[in-house]
C-alpha cells in the first residue's frame, strides 16, 4: 500500500541522522576512522567496555533516571488526585505546576546549584535559623555520590509534564468511567484502585519511559550537579571526546554507541506501550 510505504519513507528520513551518527560512532569505536595508527578492530571496544568506570557511570545515570522518574510520577499522581476538581484551589494548583515546564533543564540545574549547594540558599536559611552552625555542617546535596541534587532538579522539572498527561487521561474517558463506577456503588477507594489507578498507569507508562530516557541523557543537569566519581555516562562520553590524550578520544565513540543502544531500547519499549494504548483506544 502506498500510504504504508510513504509513512515508512518519512520514518527513514527522520531516523537517518541517528543512523549516520550511529554508523560514524561505530566506525570510530572500531578505529576504522580517527584511530591515530591504532589498527582497526574490536580492541578498543573490548578495552572500554571492561573499564569499571564505564559501567559505574552507566549504572549511576540509570539510578538517577529511575529515582527521579519514580518521584516525579508519585508527585504527579498525588497532585492529579488531590487537585482534580474545578474549584479555584484546584485550578491554581494546576496552574502553578506549569511553571517548571517553562524552565530549560539547564536553568533548573543552575537553580539546583544555587539552592542546594554548600553555600546555597538552603544552607544560608538553615544557618540564619540557627539549625546549622556554618556551611561545613550542611549535608552534601550537590556533586554527592547519590545524586540528590540531580534527582531533585529532574523531579522538579519532569513532574509537571507527567501531571499534564494525567490530567489529559482523566479529563478524557476517565471521568466517565469513574462516575459509572460510583453510580454502581463502588466506594472511593474501589474507584481509585480499580478505575483511576489503572487508567493513570496505562496513560502514563509510555511517558515514564520517555522521561526516564531524557533523564538518563540529561547532560546539562549532570554537568552542573553530578559528582566526578562516579562520572555519569553522558559526562564520561563528553570528557573522552575532548581528552588531551588524542588516542583516547575514540573511546567516546564506544560510549556513544552504548548510549544510543540504551536509547533505542527505550524507543522500542515506548512504542510498544504507546501502541497498546492506541489499540485499546480504537476498540
Amino acid at each position, binding site marked *: 500500500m502506498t*500510504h*504504508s510505504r*510513504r*509513512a*515508512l519513507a*518519512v*520514518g*527513514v528520513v*527522520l531516523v537517518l541522522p541517528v543512523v549516520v*551518527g550511529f554508523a*560514524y*560512532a561505530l566506525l570510530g569505536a572500531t578505529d576504522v576512522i580517527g584511530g591515530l595508527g591504532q589498527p582497526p578492530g574490536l580492541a578498543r571496544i573490548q578495552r572500554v567496555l571492561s573499564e569499571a568506570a564505564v559501567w559505574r557511570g552507566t549504572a549511576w545515570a540509570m539510578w538517577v533516571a529511575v529515582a527521579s522518574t519514580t518521584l516525579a510520577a508519585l508527585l504527579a499522581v498525588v497532585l492529579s488526585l*488531590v487537585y482534580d*476538581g*474545578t474549584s479555584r484551589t484546584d485550578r491554581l*494548583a494546576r496552574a*502553578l*505546576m*506549569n*511553571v517548571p*515546564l*517553562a*524552565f*530549560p*533543564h*539547564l*536553568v533548573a540545574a*543552575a*537553580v539546583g546549584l*544555587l*539552592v542546594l549547594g554548600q553555600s*546555597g540558599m538552603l544552607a*544560608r*536559611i538553615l*544557618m*540564619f535559623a540557627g539549625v546549622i552552625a*556554618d556551611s561545613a555542617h550542611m549535608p552534601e546535596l550537590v556533586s554527592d555520590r547519590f545524586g540528590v541534587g540531580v534527582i531533585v532538579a529532574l523531579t522538579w522539572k519532569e513532574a509537571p509534564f507527567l501531571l499534564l498527561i494525567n490530567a489529559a487521561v482523566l*479529563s478524557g474517558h476517565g*471521568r466517565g468511567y469513574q*462516575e459509572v463506577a460510583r453510580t454502581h456503588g463502588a466506594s472511593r477507594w474501589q474507584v481509585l484502585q480499580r478505575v483511576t489507578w489503572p487508567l493513570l498507569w496505562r496513560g502514563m507508562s509510555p511517558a515514564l519511559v*520517555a522521561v526516564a*530516557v531524557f533523564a*538518563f*541523557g540529561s547532560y*546539562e543537569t549532570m554537568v552542573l550537579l553530578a559528582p566526578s566519581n562516579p562520572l555519569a*555516562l*553522558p559526562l564520561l562520553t*563528553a570528557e573522552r*571526546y575532548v581528552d588531551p590524550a588524542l588516542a583516547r578520544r575514540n573511546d567516546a*565513540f564506544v*560510549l556513544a554507541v552504548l*548510549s*544510543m543502544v*540504551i*536509547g*533505542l531500547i527505550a*524507543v522500542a519499549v*515506548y*512504542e510498544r506501550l504507546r*501502541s497498546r494504548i492506541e489499540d485499546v483506544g480504537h476498540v
Partner: protein
Amino acid sequence: MSEHRRRTSPSASGRLLRNALLIVLALWTLAPLLLLIVLSLSRNWYAPAVWPSVWTGEHWGRLVAAASSQREALLTSVALATLTALLACLLALPFGRLIAQSRGWPRRWAAAMAFAPVAVPPIALATGMHFSLLKIGLAGHFGGVLVAHIIPAAGYLTLFFLGAFSAYDLRIEEEARTLGATRGAVWRRITLPILRAPIGDALALAFLISWAQVPLTLLIGGGLVRTLPIDVFAAIRAGDDARAASGSILLIVPALLAIAGVRVAVRRTGVVGL
C-alpha cells in the same frame, strides 16, 4: 466536560490539608523564579547573607549595551530558535500527515523512527554527527548547529502532527476536491484554517526545543556558536551568578508565554496534540 465533575464535599481537615499543600506547591514552583529575579538585581550577594544588601540594574543594562556578548548570544538564540521552528514545522507537517494516513505496523515503525532522534541521548547523537558535519564543513558554524537542532525538533513535531492529524478527518478535503476545489484552495480554505492552532503550538514547541538546547550546541558548535544557554552555562561555571540569573530569566520568559499561549489555544479549539 468538566462541569459534571462532582466531589463528595471534602471534610474540614481535608480542605485544610489541600490548602496547606497548595502553599508548599507555590513555594516549590515559584521560589526558583523569585530567587533568579532577586539574584539578577543584586551585586556581591554571597553567603551567609540571606538577602542582598546592594541592588543594581547593571546585569540587565548589559543586554542593551551595544558590544555585549550576552546580547549577541541572545540574538543568536532568537535567530536559531526561529529558524529551527520554521524549518522543523515545514518538514514535520507533511511528515506527520503521511504517517497519520497509514495503519498497522508501518505506522508504528514510522512513529518509532520519528521518536529515535528525540530519545537518543543528545551527547551521543552529537558525538556521532560531529564527524559527518565536520566532513561537510558545517561543524563550528551557525548552519551546523541549526541542522543539529532541527533533527530532534523535526522528530518531535512529526509525532505532534501525527497526533493532530489522527483527530483530523481527511474526508473533508476529499469532499472539497469532488466539489471542484483546487489543491491550493483546499490548503488555503480548509487545511490551514483547521490546523492553525496546532501549527502555532508546533512552532512554539520547536522554538523551545532549540531555545533550551545545550549539548548539541556545545559539541557541534565547538564553542564558536555562543547561544544564550551556552552563555548561562559559562556564567554559572565561572561563578558569575548574577549574569547566569538574568540569562536564565530570559530563557524562561518565552517558554512561559508559549505555555500560556498553548493553553489558550487548547481551550479555544479543544484540540490537544501529542
